[in-house]
């Protein structure tokens, strides 16, 4: 039942409670508001002085001024206190106002004057407007951006119902007399007390509920304000200023402001015109007896019938319309209908002209129809569509300033619009010339439509800015300078003097220099002279980075050129270069002095500058040193030489650099490519050289190093050979997205050439190539290729859901390690496909903007994720958005995704048999075939065992009773989709010229099926375990469990196999660390020596355990020793290999952080658990008294 209701109203079950509480508060507010509106406002209008009563213009102006003052006060509090407290505060102001008003009314003399009515009117208008505006921020506290879209629509429906309840209660409590005075009839004495009492009670209810909200809501969603520390809180005026300043800074809000003014002016003009024509029509139509009654009935009917029409629309359709069309398109509905209303309203004065009689309007039905449409638009559509959609538009405003922005627009901009129109209506021709107002309306209406289009276009970008502001505001603010006052500076100076460590002193030095530049130079120079080498180098660096250029600092640098420490010399020469310039003799002579420095990095620092001088005196020394570096045996030195070559400006050096592209050392190759990249961008290269270089560099697009491929693409662009686009095209298929993007950017820079080359290949049939070409072409001609991008995204989504079906089919076999690896491979393929979708989307909406939205989409915080989905929503249609949202939602189960793929993409159900077959048929990637064969071997082995050992052995039963947790859950042979014969025949199908690795895998699989186990032997030539075996094995090791298969492939290659005999020492305490060890076979004891003969056993490790993590990253000395307890095979991963992998896959560092965190938690648990607890054997020996 609940589910059906939730589906009907498009809400989630967990939202019921929160929605109900806010709805109850909303009913309280609206019912009270209706009563107050009818009684207090009517009393105020009744008691208005005669001259003011005659002018609606004065009323508009006065009203606008009340709103401006109210919101200026409100904005000072908004976003500074929690929203529920502000709501309670507003209710309190209303309650106090009513009490004071009652006191004033209790005096019979005062009661007859204008003042109590004026006071109550002020309270009503200010409190009513502030509360109406504050609903938005309050709801946003409890519902994220996506949920708010549904909730606001339902709350709008609740508002409608509440108005009906309010009106009905007036009808009943007024003795079933519907003729409640509205415009100019006096209010009964008893009625105003009744109205005030009801408003008092409803405000009291709101006050209590607001205070109890955090508890009532039963969720912990601290508002942004509550997470700020008190020190970060601003004063009331700063708060106000910050909010308003934000509105001026944001292009989106600037557009919103202008549109709001148009909207207010339009509304007021339309109201004026409708009233004018109603009056005239009522006064001439023979059927109408009383003008006031006629007008009152007209408005009442529109509101009543409009509400009846609007209620089901709001409840069931509006949110679906928004989901289908998007906020930005729905935003155009009301401005368009308003413009239509304005245009049709001009028909009436036109008919005046035709009939030449201003009092006769024919035919009447058309006039009434026009007025009904205009009024329906002005009231019903305005409240039902425009106001609700505006709430959605506010979703693109950061929560931090949302309250103040609303206050700014509702409390300053909109009243400003009212003031404009109030002043305009005082202009005499408005009343006499029938064309003035309609013409104005049409002009304003056109402006309103264009302004709204502008807002809609800005909406997507505003969402991205909002995500940046909400999620990364600390990063943005970090770029601001820190503000120092004199007390802070004094305190810093004291701390600098007292600081005991160099790190802190340098940090404070940096802060002091940043605050007051040169002022602290003497103090810091003195500290450098008397400090450590670290402090000397650090202070020089601080001066240079802060651009302090006094002679004292130059002298300091010159003095430390001859420092005994290389770190200081390096800082000094860099500083000198920065301060006196690279061309100055002072620097060059110092550089020459350091040319033979024993630190190669210092030589590398000065050598390029000496070469650049072209001064024979410096050049002869420099050239000699450069040649020595280029011919050096050490690759690091050669790499330095190559790098320096790249800094010269001779095209002939390019030929020289080509020699190093094929250097045996990776680092030298990389440096040579980087040097060619630099040179090719700065020198003119002849056509012959271009052809020669292009051939060589094109081959580098297949280099295993990402950075080399990236440079190769850039070099091709710099050289720009005739067939540039064709040469660069393979890079569009690169595994690395950065390489692809660079290639795409370079192709786009030559639009004509690129379009000519790529367009014919668009339908080449190669899926990825076709998609990449589309992504390039769409950036050249968006209109032509945009639809193709969306088709591509849909195709990729289909593939993703096909993969989901594959993963789903493997679930029954999940306990087989190889199947687990296959599942990981498919999952990673899906992740790559998802990245491709966002890449395609980035080609339309900008890579950076999409990246921000995707970051938010992948956040663990639901509110941030909702913002991400909302930002993507603007870029995609509902079908594509739903596909992506479902797939990326952490709450989506595999079964749900599988069902979605079946229903939306008609994906047929895969079975495990088909998945393994597909893997074996994967002719492009040998390692995948290998894994497929391994899987068949593993499944076949289990089938064989189940057929030969149908009964559970006694040993198995004992093992089960012993509760050995390390064993994987039992594998049921019934789940295996193959028969042994099928496996045999599949393996037999792999024939022909097979690579060695595949042949080995086939042999292993066939042996496994026959129950022959594979004995590892140290005597075997080459690796004992193949790379693919390593992948499967490493996936089971905790340290690598969350590392992707593509990364594990690299890890597997980097690992070294090491055998140890029983009782052999793997490493000892104090031996330098820097390696991770993984036990493949055997056991290892981790021990700490406590005396010459005794040691403590910290841990005993077995297969799939790892050790050495504690020294892996800092290569520090081991604090424990490791001893093999039996014959043991280990895989060893060394620090440089791991660091190189992290460089290539930065996200791996986060995985390692998580692994280490988990290990710390486990160690903490062990520490707590052991607390002198002994092993079973030790306990036994204790009992025996040994």
């Amino acid at each position, binding site marked *: 039942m609940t589910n059906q209701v939730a589906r009907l109203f498009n809400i989630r079950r967990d939202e019921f409670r929160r929605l109900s509480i806010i709805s109850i508060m909303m009913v309280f507010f609206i019912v009270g508001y209706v009563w107050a509106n009818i009684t207090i406002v009517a009393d105020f209008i009744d008691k208005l002085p005669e001259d003011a009563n005659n002018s609606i213009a004065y009323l508009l102006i006065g009203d606008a001024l009340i709103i401006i003052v109210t919101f200026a006060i409100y904005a000072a509090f908004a976003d500074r206190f929690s929203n529920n407290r502000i709501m309670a505060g507003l209710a309190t102001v209303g309650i106090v106002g009513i009490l004071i008003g009652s006191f004033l009314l209790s005096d019979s003399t005062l009661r007859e004057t204008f003042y109590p009515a004026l006071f109550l009117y002020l309270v009503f208008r200010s409190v009513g407007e502030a509360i109406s505006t504050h609903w938005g921020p309050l709801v946003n506290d409890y519902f994220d951006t996506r949920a708010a879209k549904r909730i606001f629509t339902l709350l709008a429906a609740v508002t409608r119902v509440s108005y009906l309840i309010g009106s009905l209660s007036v009808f009943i409590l007024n003795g079933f007399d519907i003729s409640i005075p509205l415009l100019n009839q006096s209010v009964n004495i008893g009625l105003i007390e009744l109205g005030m009492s009801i408003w008092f009670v409803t405000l009291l209810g709101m006050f209590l509920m607001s205070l109890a909200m955090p508890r009532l809501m039963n969720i912990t969603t601290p508002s942004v304000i509550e*997470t*700020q*520390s008190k*020190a970060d809180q601003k004063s009331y005026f700063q708060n106000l200023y910050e909010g308003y300043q934000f509105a001026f800074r944001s292009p989106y809000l600037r557009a919103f402001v202008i549109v709001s003014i148009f909207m207010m002016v339009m509304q007021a003009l339309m109201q004026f015109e409708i009233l004018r024509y109603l009056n005239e029509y009522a006064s001439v139509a023979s059927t109408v007896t009383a003008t006031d009654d006629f007008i009152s009935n007209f408005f009442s009917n529109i509101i009543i019938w409009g509400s009846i029409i609007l209620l089901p629309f709001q409840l069931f359709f509006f949110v679906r319309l928004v989901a289908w069309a998007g906020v930005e398109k729905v935003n155009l509905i009301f401005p368009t209908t308003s413009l239509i209303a304005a245009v049709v309203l001009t028909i009436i004065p036109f008919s005046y002209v035709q009939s030449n009689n201003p009092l006769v309007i024919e035919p009447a039905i058309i006039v009434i129809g026009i007025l009904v449409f205009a009024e329906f638009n002005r009231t019903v559509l305005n409240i039902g569509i425009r106001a609700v959609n505006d709430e959605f538009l506010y979703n693109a405003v950061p929560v931090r300033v949302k309250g103040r922005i609303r206050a700014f627009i509702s409390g300053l901009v909109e009243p400003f619009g009212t003031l404009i129109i109030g002043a305009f209506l005082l202009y005499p021709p408005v009343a006499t010339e029938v064309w003035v107002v309609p013409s104005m309306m049409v002009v304003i209406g056109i402006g309103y439509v264009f302004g709204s289009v502008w807002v809609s276009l800005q909406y997507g970008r505003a969402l991205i800015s909002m995500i940046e502001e909400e*999620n990364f*505001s*600390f*990063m943005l*603010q*970090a770029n601001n300078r*820190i*503000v*120092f006052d004199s007390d*802070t500076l004094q305190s810093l100076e004291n*701390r600098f003097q007292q600081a005991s460590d160099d*790190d802190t002193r340098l*940090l*404070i030095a940096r*802060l002091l220099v940043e605050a007051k530049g040169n002022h602290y130079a003497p103090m810091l120079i003195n500290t450098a002279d008397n400090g450590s080498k670290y402090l000397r180098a650090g202070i020089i660096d601080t001066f240079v980075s802060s651009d302090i250029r006094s002679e004292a600092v130059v002298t300091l640098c010159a003095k430390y050129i001859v420092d005994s420490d290389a770190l200081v010399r390096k800082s000094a020469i860099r500083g000198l270069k920065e301060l006196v310039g690279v061309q100055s003799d002072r620097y060059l002579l110092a550089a020459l002095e350091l040319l033979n420095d024993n630190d190669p990095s210092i030589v590398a620092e000065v050598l390029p500058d000496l070469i650049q001088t072209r001064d024979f005196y410096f050049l002869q020394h420099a050239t000699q040193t450069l040649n020595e570096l280029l011919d050096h045996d050490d690759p690091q030195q050669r790499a330095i030489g190559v790098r320096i070559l790249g800094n010269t400006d001779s095209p002939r050096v390019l030929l020289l650099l080509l020699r190093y592209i094929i250097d045996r050392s990776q680092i030298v190759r990389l440096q040579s490519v980087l040097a060619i990249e630099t040179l090719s961008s700065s020198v003119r290269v002849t056509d012959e050289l271009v052809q020669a270089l292009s051939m060589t560099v094109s081959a580098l697009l297949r280099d295993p190093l990402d950075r080399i491929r990236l440079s190769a693409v850039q070099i091709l662009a710099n050289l720009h050979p005739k067939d540039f686009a064709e040469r660069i095209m393979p890079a569009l298929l690169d595994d690395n997205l950065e390489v692809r993007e660079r290639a795409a950017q370079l192709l786009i820079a030559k639009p004509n050439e690129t379009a000519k080359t790529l367009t014919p290949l668009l339908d080449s049939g190669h899926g990825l190539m076709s998609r990449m070409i589309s992504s390039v072409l769409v950036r050249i001609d968006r209109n032509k290729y945009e639809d193709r991008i969306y088709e591509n995204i849909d195709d990729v989504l289909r593939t993703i859901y096909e993969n989901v079906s594959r993963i789903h089919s493997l679930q029954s076999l999940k306990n087989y390690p190889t199947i687990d690896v296959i599942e990981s491979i498919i999952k990673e393929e899906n992740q790559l496909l998802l990245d491709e979708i966002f890449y395609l989307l980035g080609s339309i909406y900008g890579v950076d903007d999409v990246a921000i939205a995707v970051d938010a989409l992948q956040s*663990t*915080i639901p509110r*941030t994720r909702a913002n991400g989905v909302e930002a993507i929503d603007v870029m995609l249609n509902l079908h594509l958005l739903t596909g992506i949202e479902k797939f990326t939602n952490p709450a989506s189960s595999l079964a749900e995704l599988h069902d979605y793929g079946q229903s939306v993409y008609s994906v047929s159900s895969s079975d495990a048999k088909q998945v393994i077959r597909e893997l074996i048929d994967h002719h492009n990637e040998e390692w995948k075939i290998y894994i497929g064969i391994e899987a068949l071997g593993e499944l076949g082995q289990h089938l064989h065992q189940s057929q030969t050992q149908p009964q559970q052995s006694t040993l198995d039963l004992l093992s089960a009773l012993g509760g050995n947790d390390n064993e994987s859950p039992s594998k049921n042979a019934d789940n295996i989709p193959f028969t042994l014969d099928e496996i045999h025949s599949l393996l037999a199908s792999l024939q022909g010229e097979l690579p060695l690795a595949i042949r080995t895998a086939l042999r292993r699989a066939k042996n496994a099926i026959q129950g022959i186990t594979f004995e590892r032997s140290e005597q075997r030539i080459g690796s004992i375990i193949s790379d693919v075996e390593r992948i499967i094995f490493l996936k089971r090791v905790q340290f690598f469990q969350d590392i992707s298969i593509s990364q594990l492939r690299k890890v597997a290659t980097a690992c070294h196999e090491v055998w140890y005999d029983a*009782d052999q020492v793997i490493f000892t305490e104090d031996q330098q660390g820097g390696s991770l060890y993984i036990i493949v076979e055997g*056991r290892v004891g*981790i021990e700490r020596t406590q005396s010459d*003969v*005794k*040691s*403590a*056993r*910290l*841990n005993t490790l077995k297969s799939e355990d790892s050790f050495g993590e504690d*020294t892996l*990253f*800092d290569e520090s000395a081991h*604090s*424990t020793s490791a001893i093999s*307890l039996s014959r043991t095979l280990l895989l060893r991963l060394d620090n440089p290999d791991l660091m190189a992998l992290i460089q290539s896959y*930065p996200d791996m*560092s*986060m995985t*390692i*952080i998580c692994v*280490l*965190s988990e290990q*710390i938690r486990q*160690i*903490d*648990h*062990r*520490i*707590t*658990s*052991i*607390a002198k607890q*002994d*092993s*079973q*054997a*030790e306990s036994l020996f204790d009992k025996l008294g040994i």
Partner: protein
Amino acid sequence: MLSQVDKIIFLKSIPFFANTTMQQLTALAQASITETYSSDEIIVDVGDVPRALFMIATGKVTVTHFAGDRSVEHTLETRSYFGEAYVFEDVESDFRALAISETIILRLGYDPLQTLIKKDLTLSYNIVRNLSQAIKAKNDEIASLTRTHSRGMHQIFDKIDS
């Protein structure tokens, strides 16, 4: 209450952020929240999901780890930190952190840290190194809690345990 400059200097003294740049420190200072706890007030309880690094600016905190009916308690003072193993994952704590004097804590949540790590690998290296060192320190603790035996006895135990 800690000013922005105080926070920067304090963060620099925390080994986790020893090698961070000034800009990163400023960002971290901006993202961290100052919290004041009175004596005997619980900062993190067993079963909470802390998802933050807690750094003690002033005061004293006892951190008690629980495992079944056993517990181990440590007292931490100014410039110490806790929760480092709980920042990066959504796991419930098995420890209770209790302020034992008036304490000011600088709390740094997961999201800003993750954002900064994504932007700069050096910060992640630093964190990895610090976590490794924490493992080393905890190994020392295990060693102090574990009995010692001669090599021969270890061999006998191994044979029996295997």
